């Protein structure tokens, strides 16, 4: 209960940090989606790019987040502002599930359907936008969903480089050895992850073809 009281007493700050957190997660997910979906489409259609792209995304995924934040710190324009840097790092992490699911979703479309579509004279872009993407959509969105949930958690670490967000409470609590402060960051972050998961899940069902 003392956690709840602490959150209520500091609600202004909790809200501000939650806002920062949302900004980091939202923007990085947006960028990762804008980059990841086209890359996934590319490797689904050009098998030659498959290995290098997925390997690249996999390697990024293996870099410990704290190390990645550190690596990017000296980069000129990025290093000027910690939130830019955090958004880039979070974008890189979010790529893998989005690329992989886009790829799997498009490859999972029944070959008879695409063959019929091509045979009837659909152009490549008609096939993509009218057949492949609508049929792969729910798989792609479940990749976005994974990416968002991962990002909410990872974004707490961005506070280590001064990018703000709910991680501020967590690091401060760790330094102060005060569980109330840690939880004031962790609980809203967990709630955010659950809500994001439910939200994208709802979108997934809404957009489900048929």
């Amino acid at each position: 209960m003392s956690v709840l009281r602490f959150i209520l007493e500091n609600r202004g700050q909790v809200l501000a940090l939650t806002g920062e957190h949302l900004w980091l997660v939202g923007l990085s997910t947006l960028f990762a989606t804008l980059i990841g979906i086209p890359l996934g489409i590319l490797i689904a259609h050009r098998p030659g790019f498959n290995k290098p792209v997925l390997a690249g995304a996999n390697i990024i995924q293996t870099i410990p987040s704290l190390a990645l934040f550190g690596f990017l710190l000296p980069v000129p324009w990025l290093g000027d502002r910690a939130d830019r840097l955090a958004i880039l790092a979070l974008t890189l992490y979010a790529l893998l599930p989005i690329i992989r699911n886009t790829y799997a979703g498009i490859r999972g479309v029944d070959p008879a359907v695409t063959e019929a579509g091509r045979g009837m004279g659909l152009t490549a872009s008609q096939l993509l936008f009218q057949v492949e993407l609508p049929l792969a959509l729910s798989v792609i969105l479940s990749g976005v969903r994974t990416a968002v949930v991962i990002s909410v958690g990872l974004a707490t670490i961005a506070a280590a480089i001064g990018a703000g967000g709910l991680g501020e409470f967590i690091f401060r609590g760790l330094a102060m050895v005060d569980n109330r402060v840690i939880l004031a960051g962790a609980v809203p972050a967990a709630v955010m992850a659950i809500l994001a998961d439910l939200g994208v899940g709802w979108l997934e069902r809404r957009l489900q073809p048929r």
Partner: protein
Amino acid sequence: MARKVSPDDATPVSLARMQPAAASPVIEFRDVSFRVAGTQVLCNFNLQVRAGEILVLLGRSGSGKTTTLKLVNRLVSPTNGEVCVKGVPNSRTDVIRLRRSIGYVIQDVGLFPHFNVARNIALVPTIEGWPAARVAARVDELLRLTGLAPEIASRYPHQLSGGQRQRVGVARALASDPEILLMDEPFGALDPITRDELQREFLSLQRRLGKTVVFVTHDLREAMRLGSRIGLMEAGRLVTILTPEEFLRSTDPWAAAYVQAFGDRLEPNSIEGKS
């Protein structure tokens, strides 16, 4: 049996096509070879398909009959030689235009699962930009033509039976009234009774519309029943090309092997009596 042919129809049906025109073939293979990954799929293939006929390509799996079909609408391109459709070499036509002018029916049907029946049938007319009213009228007409109930129009493919699905597949292929139909074992996955029904209806439909059909099957009985001529394929070559009557009497070892395999249950083309 009257069919509406609107003046701006892409390929109007003329009754003249129903008589086999001795003139130029609708589809012509000239010394076509097709190799993929070191395997010779087709070898020096020559074939002429006449207007209004049902040319059946009969052969075992792997004999190259599906590849032959895909060469017509350029889903594959020949390694050597030339495929001509209506006198124009395929390599020099716009592939999208070519495919939209040819109906294509495959065994797995390939209906779009997220489109209802009406939208599936209307696929080519829609992408060709027909006005909505004309598309709707055409869908109604095709549902009737292929023996489907009008209420099916709003259903989705997964709500249909196998036979209904293949009827929709045929309706979709006929939508923009193409002169040519390519059919790749369209009735192969159906139960015998439904297959019999669809073969019968397809034959009478073809007589009314006078399409030029290339039909792939491995079933000699189906070939006998539907074919004007049967092209027997083996290992990427066209062994022989015969009418069903000739096929039964043929001394060609491959043809004889087929006749033997199917025993005496054969009837050269159909009860309806071929012209």
